[in-house]
């Protein structure tokens, strides 16, 4: 599966970009900027998951379910088992979300279009309803997360930042290996023609289920890392439907064209949010909503297609 993956051009670009980012973030950039990169990269994992789903034209309006589930899994394991190791936290978040995705996948794999979106929404709101009222989980105040450790030593902010960068690189390698495989291409094929896929002897539902679990794992990992870097989990900013909407928004903003796009999109989103909040605390949602409409109208392929257009123009000028 991973044969020759490091020779893949978009994987090489991604690794390069993220390494540069890690160096800048660790040594040069001010704290608030590298924080934005850190949050952006973490949430980018969830966006990557949505992008993978979207390639089969499935849009989940409830992906915060896995994002929040991963985050709360980290919180609960700290509360009950005292787990603070960052590697364990990541594994727990991914595994918890993956298991939940596997279970719900048996139902969701039969759904398409708006029904898929609505059922995902319903599931995520079920979790929200539980968390918002569960007093032992802090209700709407949520729970705080203690700083992460790595084999016993406490992890500083910069170390966590680098850890997240490495996780992102691994996720990109894995996702690209999946997308370029026959199984990954099958998902575009499913979007084109489900009947044919069945007649080629493969179960459409199974292919979608696999994809769904991958997507859930990525979102869970994002939630786990986000919990560790924010030091806090709560239902309103991690499970509510508007969080799912935000993730879908970042997906459309990034575009489906490239494996690195979700992370660029998520980082840009963090910056827009920080700046908008700074400049116009009363109108930051308006700025984000306006950005969303502008992207839908003027660049339906997302930011990535803008990059490609720029590249194209540059090549033309050179000729």
């Amino acid at each position: 599966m991973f044969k020759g993956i490091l020779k893949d051009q978009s994987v090489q670009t991604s690794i390069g970009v993220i390494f540069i980012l890690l160096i800048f973030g660790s040594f040069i950039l001010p704290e608030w900027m590298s924080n934005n990169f850190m949050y952006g990269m973490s949430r980018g994992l969830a966006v990557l998951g949505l992008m993978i789903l979207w390639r089969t034209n499935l849009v989940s309006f409830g992906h915060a379910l896995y994002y929040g589930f991963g985050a709360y899994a980290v919180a609960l394991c700290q509360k009950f088992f005292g787990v603070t190791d960052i590697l364990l936290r990541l594994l727990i978040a991914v595994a918890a979300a993956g298991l939940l995705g596997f279970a719900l996948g048996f139902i969701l794999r039969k759904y398409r279009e708006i029904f898929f979106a609505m059922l995902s929404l319903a599931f995520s709101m079920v979790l929200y309803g539980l968390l918002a009222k569960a007093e032992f989980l802090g209700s709407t105040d949520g729970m705080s997360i203690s700083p992460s450790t790595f084999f016993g030593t406490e992890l500083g902010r910069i170390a966590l930042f680098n850890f997240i960068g490495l996780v992102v690189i691994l996720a990109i390698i894995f996702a690209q290996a999946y997308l370029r495989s026959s199984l990954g291409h099958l998902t575009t094929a499913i979007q084109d023609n489900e009947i044919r896929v069945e007649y080629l002897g493969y179960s459409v539902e199974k292919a979608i289920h696999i994809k769904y679990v991958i997507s859930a794992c990525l979102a869970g990992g994002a939630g786990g890392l986000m919990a560790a870097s924010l030091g806090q989990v709560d239902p309103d900013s991690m499970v509510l439907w508007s969080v799912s909407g935000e993730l879908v928004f970042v997906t459309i903003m990034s575009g489906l064209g490239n494996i690195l796009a979700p992370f660029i999109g998520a980082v840009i989103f963090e910056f827009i949010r920080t700046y908008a909040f700074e400049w116009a605390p009363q109108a930051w949602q308006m700025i984000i909503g306006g950005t969303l409409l502008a992207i839908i109208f003027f660049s339906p392929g997302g930011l990535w297609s803008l990059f490609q257009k720029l590249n194209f123009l540059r090549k033309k000028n050179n000729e």
Partner: protein
Amino acid sequence: MNNNFILQTKDLQKSFSGIIAAENINISVKEGEIIGIIGANGAGKTVFVNMITGYLKPTSGKIHFLGNDITGIKPREATHIGVCRSFQVSQVFMTMTVKQNLMIAMSLSKKKGGQLLLPLEDEKLSKECDKILDLYKIKKQGDLIVSTLSQGMRKLLDIAMAVVGNPKVLLLDEPTSGVSVEEKFGIMDIVISALKKSGTTVLFVEHDMEIVERYVDRVIAFYQGQVICDDTPKKALKNKKVIQYVLGS
């Protein structure tokens, strides 16, 4: 059921909310036979193909394949046991290239699951794929997106995708409709000779009697959901009922 036959149907019937689309269909097919299915539009040919390949579930009756009851199986199960098909309206992946289409079909047909995890653009697979595209004379179009192709080209791709699964029984639904007059014999020569070599049993729905006469061992004629003639092409095409109800003269 007789095991000498690869495919047998017994009193197959299909009705859609009371309207009968096919009934009393009793057909036995020997291994390696090439059979032409003819009939006017709406005579029940495609319904028959759809029932055999699991797209439609028969209302009553049985279908046996190699002595096993396969009535009402799912399309992908039909493919697994070796009953494959092409479609009247080509069912291909419109937004992908010709080569990607065929390579997906090829990697799904490999019995070992591992192929699915290999890159689609695998070198070995790519070479095999080129050979097949060459055989069907669509190699030049290999890198074109399917939606830009002509109907005839899509048809060929559709058939090629069905054939790469190495079926035991292949059902082709109007393989030459939409293919240009000059090309149709050339293409059918390629397809039929390849299938004969591998001993594949073929049933194809066809409107073009020239094609029927040239390639088939046996003709089955449908009229209003029933089989009205099951004979050698020479005799069938002279059959009174066939002339009246199918050939329309």
